[in-house]
């Protein structure tokens, strides 16, 4: 197998992984809760894109323009009604809450759309760039590009705007942030909304590449956890780093092992990192006292 080909492929996949993981990173960074409903929102994002395409002929490439604001509002609503109540309790509570939310999302999708696999086929889907032995599907490039744009936009937002700085300070030290007068409640809601919006964006982009059913996102979520742990829970650049690391490990690992074990790579990596760097990640883990 051509090394260059593998490398390019890995980088494109990394872009994809990063896009899926931003939402998780942001929500954990600010609210300190692990969003187990990650997969559910990715899946709904994909279905929303598909539905708009089949029902109204709405161009899937433009779908994020609708999905991002809508999901943002949904995120804020969720935060206000449910998340707010559990933010300050033991992490297990929020874990279970979001697990329940995921179950609800998954089964509502089953009821509305049935378990049939859906996919989106537009001219972009099959277009490829071919030069010699290297073949690059344009759809992946598009996803990579949008993902990178989102990364840059978020990074700018976090560093250049006041709201962004507020988010970062809460992520660093919530009590200190409160002391300097930051309205933690309001910022929490916005951060959660942003996280969900990013998930919707991710799902919408994924729908261009993969077929999906209501169970979509579960394996990808495990990879997201791996990425977020690898690269650091509070920075987007960290997410990018983690994504590249995972994508490279998978792509090159595949040369030496059967394809069916590919998903095992992310799990093994997750466990190895979690266990090999207990001190390094320990600080982040012990932000919640007790459990």
């Amino acid at each position, binding site marked *: 197998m051509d090394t260059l080909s593998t490398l390019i492929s890995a980088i494109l996949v990394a872009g994809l992984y990063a896009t899926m993981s931003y939402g998780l990173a942001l929500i954990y960074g600010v609210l300190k809760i692990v969003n187990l409903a990650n997969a559910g929102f990715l899946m709904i994002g994909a279905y929303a894109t598909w539905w708009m395409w089949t029902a109204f002929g709405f161009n899937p490439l433009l779908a994020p323009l609708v999905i991002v604001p809508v999901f943002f509002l949904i995120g804020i609503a969720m935060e206000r009604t449910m998340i707010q109540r559990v933010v300050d309790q033991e992490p297990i509570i929020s874990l279970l809450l979001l697990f329940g939310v995921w179950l609800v999302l998954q089964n509502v999708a089953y009821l509305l759309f049935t*378990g049939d696999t859906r996919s989106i086929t537009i001219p972009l889907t*099959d277009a490829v760039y071919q030069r010699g032995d290297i073949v690059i*599907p344009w759809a992946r490039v598009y996803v990579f590009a949008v993902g990178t744009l989102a990364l840059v936009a978020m990074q700018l937002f976090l560093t250049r705007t006041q709201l962004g700085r507020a988010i970062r300070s809460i992520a660093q030290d919530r009590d200190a942030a409160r002391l300097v007068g930051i309205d933690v409640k309001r910022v929490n809601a916005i951060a959660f909304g942003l996280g969900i919006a990013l998930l919707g964006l991710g799902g919408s982009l994924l729908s261009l590449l993969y077929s*999906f059913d209501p169970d979509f996102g579960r394996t990808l979520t495990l990879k997201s956890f791996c990425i977020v742990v690898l690269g650091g829970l509070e920075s987007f650049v960290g997410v990018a780093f983690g994504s590249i690391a995972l994508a490279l490990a998978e792509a090159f690992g595949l040369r030496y092992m059967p394809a069916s074990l590919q998903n095992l790579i992310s799990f093994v990596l997750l466990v190895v990192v979690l266990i090999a760097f207990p001190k390094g990640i320990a600080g982040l883990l012990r932000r919640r006292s007790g459990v």
Partner: protein
Amino acid sequence: MTRRLVTLAIAFSCVLLFASYGVKAAPAPNAPAEIVIGAALPLTGAESRVGTYFKAAYELAAKEVNDSGGIFLKDFGKKIPVRLIIYDDKTEATTSRDLYERLAVQDHVDAFLGGYSTDLIMANTVVAQQRQIPYVNGGGAATQIYGRGFTTIFGLLASIQSLALTECDFIEKAQAEGKLPRPLTMAVVYENTAHGKDFNDGLNQCATNKPQNFKVVMSEAFDLHGKDFSPLLAKVKATNADAFMSDAHLDDYITMQRQYKQAGLHNKFITYGARGPEKSAREALGDGVDYIVAASWWSSKLPGQPVKDFVAKWAAAYPNLSPEWFSALPYETAVVLFDGITAAGSVDKNRVTEALRKTDLRGTLMPTGVVKFQSNGQVDLPFVVTQNLPAGSVVVVWPEAEATGKAVLPVP
């Protein structure tokens, strides 16, 4: 006081719980008011697409027989209507088995119609064996279903190993005509299920028996319902094989073929086992499915009047569902069961099982028209090989006696 209330409350709810499950008495031994047939199908979950077709087919067969008054039972000298009970097992093996148990014990069915998908059938046939209830299915092809010494299980799907061997026969013919190279190097990818393993075993058998015609250069399993096959396909590309032989379920077929095209792959022979001509694949991928060869248990393009009649019947009853093998097979399965009951002349389970064992039907929908079970309960019918041609057409290319067109090989 509270303690007593609590005790009473719990005792009362226990009684309610028992009562709600109703200890129904088994029906009396006189002429039954109806013949109860039960099945659990994956109507939701991963296999729901095919599961819903199975339900439609069973219902069509039941309606047909009821429209003529029912099944004639010699023992009672009259026609008795059929009542069909179908539950949704959500594509879960344990749920499927529990539901068949319920059908046996709660609904007192006289016979079972089978489910769909080997994993589910492996689990739910246990109930049929334990309670000695006849079970006829058109949804499980893996040989291990019939290799357990169970005596009441019958299946209309020929084994996947047969499928692989049929494709090999077809390839040999093409090689003889100079359309494909000799030996044909094959990159085999198969789903990690009993189904896929049978396919892989069959192809390996071809290569062992006829090394001058076949050579396996890659053999790898992939997980069902995967999303990303590009790494696997990259490996396939690296082998530069003549043929791409895959065995996959419908959704994986569509995903894989899309990514196959995106990877710029171009083999001389492409097959996805039993998948190929499905309308939903054509709709999803357009001309991306052209030239794919499939070996299936049935094709609507088969010649013969019974097939044409069925296609017409199906279109009239279900204009929105296409006539695929998963329309015809379950329909024929139900018909075979009803025939068995008629031949037995009663709903006595042992007699029906014996009658089914002796099934010897001609002029059915199946390829060659014959339905006859081997000693292990599975049929041994030939497969129908089809090829997708441009502009949405499909031709039968094998067996030669039933061919309706010529194969276009190698893939242009």
